[in-house]
């Protein structure tokens, strides 16, 4: 691993890249045309955030790697996204549960980073915070509509929440990397971020007549490159073209 700042930028960027890839899989598969456009827009925002973070990570690293090198030429163990982001889309309920959790996490992270002592990161975050707030409005609206909808939509939305619940801790998992840059005023205190996340999720679940699962099992490891089985299947599809035709452009 490189410097703490480099690693932290990859953690932020990889969340966005992998979630973007997952959302991209859904284009042309959504239940209605408007949602098809929505997932494409969400994927585009996350991809844009990933590009900005990778470009800056490459500058911080100083070895000449650009956004494409970082996105396309790393292997599974070198990815530091939270495992939530790589989970399969499942049905629409599961997709929206995953989106709600990631949005509710990203909003306070980006809002806090807007005040980062690292001015470049603060600028990227200020842009991304606006997008994340809009995403949260979209995902929370769907979770409420489905949860407080028919018996069938309620059952499936609850199932989606339960399927994604074990991956929440990984979003907030911290190690020495975080400690070092938090003390430097670069990254926020994740316990504060998590408080905001918990309040948002509790409010949405209550409005949606859904229940927070009480299964204590949590799967972590993504932040140090230990992923669930899914990431290993995402990467070849995402990286194949770039690796088969190095330097290609069109």
């Amino acid at each position, binding site marked *: 691993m490189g410097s703490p700042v480099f690693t932290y930028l990859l953690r932020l960027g990889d969340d966005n890249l992998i979630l973007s890839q997952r959302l991209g899989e859904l284009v042309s598969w959504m239940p209605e045309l408007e949602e098809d*456009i*929505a997932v494409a827009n969400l994927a*585009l*925002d996350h991809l844009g*955030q990933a590009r*900005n973070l990778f470009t800056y990570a490459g500058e911080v690293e100083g070895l000449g790697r650009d956004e494409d090198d970082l996105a396309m030429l790393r292997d599974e163990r070198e990815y530091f996204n939270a495992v939530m982001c790589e989970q399969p889309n499942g049905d629409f309920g599961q997709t929206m549960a995953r989106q709600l959790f990631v949005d509710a996490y990203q909003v306070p992270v980006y809002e806090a980073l807007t005040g980062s002592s690292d001015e470049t990161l603060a600028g990227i975050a200020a842009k991304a915070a606006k997008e994340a707030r809009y995403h949260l*409005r979209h995902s929370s*609206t769907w979770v409420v509509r489905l949860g407080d909808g028919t018996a069938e939509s309620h059952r499936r939305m609850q199932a989606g929440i339960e399927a994604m619940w074990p991956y929440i801790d990984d979003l907030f998992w911290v190690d020495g990397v975080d400690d070092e840059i938090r003390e430097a005023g670069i990254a926020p205190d994740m316990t504060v971020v998590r408080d905001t996340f918990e309040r948002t999720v509790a409010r949405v679940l209550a409005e949606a007549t859904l229940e927070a699962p009480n299964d204590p099992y949590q799967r972590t490891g993504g932040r140090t490159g230990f992923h669930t089985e899914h990431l290993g299947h995402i990467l070849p599809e995402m990286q194949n073209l770039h690796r088969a035709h190095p330097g290609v452009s069109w």
Partner: protein
Amino acid sequence: MVSATGADLGRVRAAVAAVSDPEVPVLTIDDLGVLRSVEEADGRILVTITPTYSGCPAMQFIEDRIIEAVLDAGFEGEVRTVFSPAWTTDWMSDDGRRKLREYGIAPPNPVGSADETVLTIRAVVRCPRCDSADTKPVSEFGSTACKALYQCNDCHEPFDYFKEL
């Protein structure tokens, strides 16, 4: 090396400011507030822009058009992208808002006019065709990242709303 005079710089700036947004061609990058500054150093033109959305696919196209516009004006230039301060629709010019409305797109409301927290009612979006305030959102996301889809309950016109950001 040719040094740009004040008059040259004004001419270059006007050429750059006239570059239009490929996704909303009725607006220039100046109308949008994407163009932040045009400066000269040692005979080269430095154009600073800021993206509307992180993933806006039009930015590369806009950069290429800026370089062309600078070349056409007789100078070499480069484009620098800055993220801070983050772009806001509040930077859109009054002229830009008028052009948008005439084009059939509802211009953005002032930022902060709608409660941004979850699960709340949005601000009123007026129909660009009949000016009715009785409109409904059809989709939070529209044909481009910067727009949402609305419909007028009075004249029934479906229209794009340039989202406040």
